[in-house]
């Protein structure tokens, strides 16, 4: 989003345009959800409450004109600031309740199947399919790097390939996945349009 687009969006929200509010959330929702879930624990059911609080605070502030574009900070930084404040508030609250310990241990523990985030599940489904389609040489480096958690140097020794080539191969595999993801997304949009037309 350019600076001009941001200014325009904020103005529209200030004037009570609900469409503009939807645009705001479609831009930042996935970022907020990701940050909250990674901070408080992916299996922590409170993530939805924290996200709702952030959305409410963000909307209220923008409706009341508390965000001044002229100050120089971007809208993204402003949303990030509110997100971090709310996460801190959550931890403070939980500390008071003395139930913080089990939550912290869950941080960065990604549970794949129990994920309530539908968008995330769709991405995983797509990724699973694309990973299966990769060539063996890419599967090899990805498996060793992310399943066996070997360092690039260790992989290099194991498969007898210079470390630079190992890094390149991993990056190339990720780029391939990105490219294929874009294609799949376009294809699903196209499919959706076709279904509507038929």
């Amino acid at each position, binding site marked *: 989003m350019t600076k001009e687009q941001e200014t325009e969006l904020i103005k529209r929200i200030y004037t009570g345009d609900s469409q503009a509010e939807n645009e705001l959330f479609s831009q930042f929702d996935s970022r907020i959800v990701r940050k909250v879930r990674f901070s408080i624990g992916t299996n922590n059911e409170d993530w939805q409450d924290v996200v709702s609080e952030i959305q409410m605070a963000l909307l209220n502030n923008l409706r009341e004109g508390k965000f001044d574009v002229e100050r120089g900070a971007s809208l993204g*930084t402003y949303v990030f600031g509110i997100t971090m404040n709310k996460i801190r508030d959550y931890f403070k609250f939980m500390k008071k309740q003395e139930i913080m310990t089990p939550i912290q241990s869950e941080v960065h523990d990604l549970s794949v199947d129990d994920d309530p985030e539908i968008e995330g599940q769709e*991405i995983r489904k797509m990724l699973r399919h694309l990973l299966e389609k990769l060539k063996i040489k890419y599967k090899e480096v990805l498996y060793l790097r992310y399943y066996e958690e070997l360092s690039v140097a260790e992989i290099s020794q194991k498969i007898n390939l210079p470390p630079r080539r190992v890094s390149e191969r991993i990056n190339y595999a990720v780029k391939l996945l990105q490219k294929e993801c874009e294609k799949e997304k376009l294809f699903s949009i196209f499919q959706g349009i076709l279904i509507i037309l038929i």
Partner: protein
Amino acid sequence: MKCELSNREQLIEDYVTGSLSQEEMDAFDEHCFNCDICFEELRLKEEMAALIKAEGKTIFSDYLAKQKVKRVGFVRSLIDKLPRLNLEWQIPQWVYAPVAVGAVAVVCFFIAKNTILPDRTGMIPQENYVVEQKETLEINEQEQLAESQQPVQKEETKHSTEKAQDKPKNVSGGAGGVDVRQLYAENFKTSPFMEEMVNSYSVRSYAITVLSPKIDENVKGNILFQWEEIEQAPIYLKILNNQAVELYSFKPENNQFLFTEKLKPGLYYWKLESEDDVLFVGKFFME
């Protein structure tokens, strides 16, 4: 919107593998709130890493199957390369008898070499040798003990040490004699388990800085165990032999302990422990 980060791929890789500090992660998160390119790439890589960690064996089953075939194929090719011997027709039966006689002769030769030959060459028999060596070492140890306890009598002790050294010169220490480590070879054998402990605990002894004895130090007579401790906690000093059997346990004070018991020549391990944790593992050689 274009991203101006030049090291984006490395940053994302470090983020996903947990190599960034919390501050660096927050800073990159803030950047991702402003940058669609980085956010999409981070999200994809994060999801991919989590998916591979959770379902890697299923997703990459074809790769794993190929690896298995490769390993089996390698072993099979090695077996195939071995010369195919058909013993029944290649080796005539009359060969077996002389081969058996030869093998018995070789065994007899080695037995004779180890038992009869030393007497013939006029060398001291092995058993007497050990006893004499042990006595010499005990004399040395007693003298060193006395030296450390009575510095005034140093000159006299030195004189007797010279005498004692003169006596075993032909049987120990010198270039022509037999090394203590050879005589007590069993006592100098390392314990793989304890070696591993030494490797890991001597490096990460963050709560303790050991001053003496150093790892692999050769010690004689009394041993001064000394260390500097960060946290004040009751500490236990334990001395173990080379088979990881605990020989002594002490509760020293003031971060040091003078060990005055006699130890046979050999490799010894020592540990410093708190109530519930091992703080340091070291080793020394008693010569």
